[in-house]
């Protein structure tokens, strides 16, 4: 990674006649990318990096795809759920100095809010034009952003790292893995497995899967689909809130912080397949790895690349990598 670099700095005059592609401002740095692939420490560090980005994203995207899969609702308010989770965690941590309680509060608090949102607002637009649903969600984004600004103030907030995690990072094959991120990876994988187990093996999970495919049949069998919908929405919201709460030690909180994660979760859900949680996992890890290695090879195209990936999947297999056809 050290040694003379033949890459062109963005904005700095070109050296060694390096060809400048497409954007006249910066270039691809494929040399750096191949350097990285041939270095164990780089691979370890960047892969962990990709996993971290991906897994936190997965929690949010899983909720989004679950809600779409079962309720056929595109929940544009999902980013705001994430934001609320972060703020709830921040406040509870301030009151109790306990990160564990803060995360719990985030998950439960947002789960309850999602329940309220679904029962009183979203349920009124089931089956309506998707644009009406979009309108309702957007109204809530506006209201929540303002509410957050009024309650917590306009300046950005930060919680800081809980003391437990302030240990030096692990070194594996020369690559760096911070303690907190290891914790996050374990927790999110645990949640992912738990989610899968619930959906695949419990009665509740079976009912949810059935409701996704044939709601009228499920209700004909005497099961209250309204309750199911509410539960699914609450779980989806809870996942987003949990992600917000877990990420708080390494994020700064402002109103509007939900936007970028909303867009990214959409990309993941499209790539993975709307309604498929396993697809969301694959999609988010893919995005995470693309970001991690992309920032080395083509730092300025990473965002564009994600949208390009989304477009490519839509063209080749619109239902996503693991989505069901039709």
């Amino acid at each position: 990674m050290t040694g003379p670099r033949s890459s062109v700095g963005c904005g700095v005059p070109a050296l060694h006649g390096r060809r400048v592609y497409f954007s006249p401002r910066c270039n691809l740095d494929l040399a750096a990318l191949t350097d990285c692939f041939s270095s164990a420490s780089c691979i370890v560090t960047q892969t962990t990096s990709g996993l971290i980005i991906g897994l936190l994203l997965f929690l949010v995207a899983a909720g989004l795809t679950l809600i779409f899969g079962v309720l056929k609702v595109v929940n544009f308010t999902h980013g705001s759920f994430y934001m609320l989770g972060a703020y709830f965690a921040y406040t509870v941590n301030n009151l109790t100095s306990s990160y564990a309680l803060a995360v719990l509060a985030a998950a439960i608090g947002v789960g309850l809010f999602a329940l309220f949102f679904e029962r009183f607002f979203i349920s009124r637009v089931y089956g309506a034009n998707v644009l009406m649903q979009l309108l309702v969600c957007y109204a809530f984004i506006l209201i929540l952003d303002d509410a957050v600004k009024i309650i917590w103030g306009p300046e950005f907030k930060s919680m800081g790292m809980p003391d437990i995690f302030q240990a030096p990072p692990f070194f594996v094959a020369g690559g760096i893995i911070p303690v907190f991120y290891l914790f996050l990876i374990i927790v999110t994988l645990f949640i992912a497995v738990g989610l899968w187990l619930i959906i695949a093996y419990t009665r509740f999970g079976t009912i949810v899967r059935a409701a996704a495919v044939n709601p009228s049949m499920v209700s004909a069998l005497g099961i209250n689909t309204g309750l199911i919908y509410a539960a699914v929405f609450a779980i989806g919201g809870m996942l987003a809130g949990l992600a917000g709460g877990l990420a708080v030690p390494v994020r700064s909180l402002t109103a509007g912080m939900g936007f970028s994660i909303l867009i990214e979760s959409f990309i993941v859900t499209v790539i993975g397949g709307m309604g498929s949680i396993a697809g969301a996992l694959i999609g988010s890890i893919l995005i995470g790895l693309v970001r991690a290695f992309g920032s080395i090879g083509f730092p300025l195209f990473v965002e564009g690349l994600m949208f390009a990936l989304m477009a490519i999947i839509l063209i080749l297999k619109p239902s996503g990598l693991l989505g069901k056809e039709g």
Partner: protein
Amino acid sequence: MAPKQTTLSRDLLIAGVALLVLLILPVLWPSKALSDLIIRVSAFSLFATSLNLLVGYTGMVSFGHGMFFGFGAYCFGLSMQRLGVSIPTALLLTIALTAVLAAVVGAISIRLKEIYFAFITLAFQMLLHSLIIAWVPLTGGDQGLMGGIPRPEFLGIDFGLESNRYAFSVLLMIVGLLALRHVAESPFGYTLRMIRDNPERASFLGVNVFRTKLTAFIIAGIFGAVGGVIMAMFVSGAYPEFANWTMSGEGIFMVMLGGISTFLGPTVGAVILSLLNDLITRRTEHHGIFLGVIILVFALGLRKGVTDFIADWFQARRESAGAQLKGGRQ
């Protein structure tokens, strides 16, 4: 056929009257805020009505329509700044380039159905947005086109005068709306409705669904871009926000608030949203809460756009013309 002719001449009459009214208005009521509002409404009206050609008439929900608004603004701005052409030439150039963009994007996107079509248009829009921000030497990046858009004289008309720019914007809106109306009421427009209602049947009847949809997409793109041109002239620049997904969102809200099933619905929506925005931001900085609540009232209370509501009301009244009815909904 006779009904079509009546429609055309009636539309021309209405358009003419509207144009006259709008041109005389600043003389009778010299409020710059009103003129500014009308110019902005002109831009958004074309944008939203062209979007509704896709959403309401053809059943194609697009989340990326803002790409044409932004593309139109930048094309126009760049042509004026770099090529030094006259305003009408820049406008024509913009239309031509937009048609190419719409053809390319449409050809790829239209094969997808429903929500996937929506997402891929969004993806293309964000790609354009990323491109605008990245290509700094051409577009100025996130600062936008700086230095203002030149206003050269054309055929003796001095575009440096605000009143002339106002007249031009209003003229563009009326002509654009008239053209879109003509498209919507033509056999092509009815084919679009047929595709919206039953695409299989349409194709059995020999309609090339793909090509028809593509044509509609291109037309919609062109008029979306003209909306962008009006806005670029108003702010004397072009900014990446014009091509952001928030712009697409605003277009959708105008269509939904104003009414998806009438031709003028989106225009009404543009008026409502602009008025609401102006009113609310004047009084308070907590515009999010107020606007959000009002939108909720519309979405959950009315459950349809304003003109849809009015149209349904008149329909209900007509249908029970015999019996006494207190003007309730069906």
